[in-house]
């Protein structure tokens, strides 16, 4: 058991498939009527096993690609191999995705005649395969980014070694140009539709072939035409991001003031309540006083009667 655990995932899958086949044979020997269901069941597991194996092969290829991309060579450029590998991996991911979708439809077709546990198991298997594919395509994306970064680094290093004459022939590997490309790559939806991934990072090696438009220095600026264009566009981009920040600050300020407004609202409501209650009290007081007159008259009358009595007696 421990040796099986230390080996890679691949071994377990073949074990699993052998087990499934053995079980299937046993089932076939045991009973006939559930045979079509079991056949369909084993077809599902077969497909799932095939997809799992494909995913692992793709992971291996990705590892190779990653080691190639990480190699920091300046002169020994393995660009064609890297491109070939990348195309291969992309194709594999696309086919695996297609197979997973087919598996999903197959699973849904068979949902009628099976027990609840089998249905859950199938859906679990499909989901786990999809997550594996998603993680694989994430790794692929990381490798592509690594590749473009190393290309950039090798470009600058080439410049350093080859010398100042290359300033005029500077190719457009500028980061400000790449930043929208980078951002658009990072925001891609993961996994389920890897065919739509933005493989713009691969176009960087193609730009090395542009040799025709060599620019000469102009009298006023110290940069060539293309560089000045990229500078202008870069400044536009920074302006737009500044605007974005300003908008965010605006929203923040307004939301801070919302609290203040709510406090004012609460205060004014309490004022309303207080004044209403006070008015109530005053009304009662007034009614009290006005009704009190009668009582006061009676008291006065009683006192007057007493006074009269006193005067009369005295």
């Amino acid at each position, binding site marked *: 058991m421990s040796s099986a655990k230390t080996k890679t995932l691949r071994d377990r899958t073949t074990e699993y498939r052998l087990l499934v086949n053995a079980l299937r044979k046993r089932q076939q020997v045991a009973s006939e009527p559930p045979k079509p269901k079991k056949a369909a069941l084993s077809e599902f597991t077969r497909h799932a096993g095939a997809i799992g194996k494909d995913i692992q092969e793709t992971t291996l290829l990705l590892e190779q690609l990653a080691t190639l991309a990480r190699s920091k060579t300046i002169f020994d450029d393995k660009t064609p191999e890297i491109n070939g590998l990348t195309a291969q991996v992309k194709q594999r991911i696309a086919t695996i995705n297609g197979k997973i979708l087919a598996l999903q439809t197959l699973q849904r077709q068979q949902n009628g005649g099976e027990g609840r546990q089998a249905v859950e198991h199938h859906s679990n298997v499909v989901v786990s395969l999809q997550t594996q594919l998603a993680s694989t395509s994430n790794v692929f994306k990381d490798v592509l980014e690594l590749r473009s970064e190393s290309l950039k680094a090798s470009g600058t290093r080439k410049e350093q070694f080859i010398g100042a004459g290359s300033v005029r022939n500077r190719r457009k590997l500028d980061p400000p140009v790449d930043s929208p490309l980078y951002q658009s790559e990072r925001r891609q939806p993961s996994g389920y539709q890897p065919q739509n991934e933005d493989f713009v990072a691969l176009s960087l090696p193609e730009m090395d072939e542009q040799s025709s438009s060599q620019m000469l220095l102009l009298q006023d*600026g110290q940069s060539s035409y293309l560089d000045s264009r990229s500078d202008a566009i870069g400044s536009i981009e920074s302006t737009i991001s500044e605007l974005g920040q300003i908008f965010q600050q*605006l929203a923040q300020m307004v939301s801070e003031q919302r609290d203040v407004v709510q406090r004012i609202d609460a205060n004014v409501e309490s004022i309303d309540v*207080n004044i209403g209650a006070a008015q109530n009290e005053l009304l009662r007081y007034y009614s009290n006083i006005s009704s009190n007159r009668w009582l006061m008259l009676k008291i006065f009358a009683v006192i007057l009667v007493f006074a009269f009595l006193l005067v009369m007696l005295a």
Partner: protein
Amino acid sequence: MKVFHLSVVRTTPTPSVPLATASDLSSFSFFQRGSIQEFMNFFATTVAERTQDGQRQGVDQDNYVAYVYRQPGGLSSVAVTDKEYPARVALSLVAKILDEFTKEFNAERIASADKIAFPALDDYVRKYQDPKQADNIMRVQQELDETKVVLHKTIEGILERGEKLESLVDRSNQLSDQSKMFYKTAKKTNACCIVM
């Protein structure tokens, strides 16, 4: 910042021929215009000849600058401007002229004719007198700057609003306390012993 002269020059058969020209010499006095026009034509054709295929260049002369773009086929377009005109705008203008020219007229006509009427050149001369409006990038930048100014004013307005809201809060607080005192006093007068 002015554009003086725009022209499309055919350079491949060696006497280079300006196929289409347009000029705006309104800033010069009437009597100088003839000689200056001659000079512009000569300047444009010479510069176009001295550029190589697929190259863009800007050449200074007195207080004029000629921006030229020469296509690999030998067809080139030249713009003569003053020194303050932004180089990038001039070069993009020049490329744009060439694109339109090649789109409108086919290769044989270009190779055969000596002078082709290209009315769009006059429009371009007129339009590009103000590079800020004509060039897309500069226009976008200008609009963004205006928007930024507007947003700054908005933020100042919001700060003022904040101050006013603060004062409002304080006053409503005071009012609330006062009304509470009012209520308490009224209640006190009501609850006490019978008054005469």
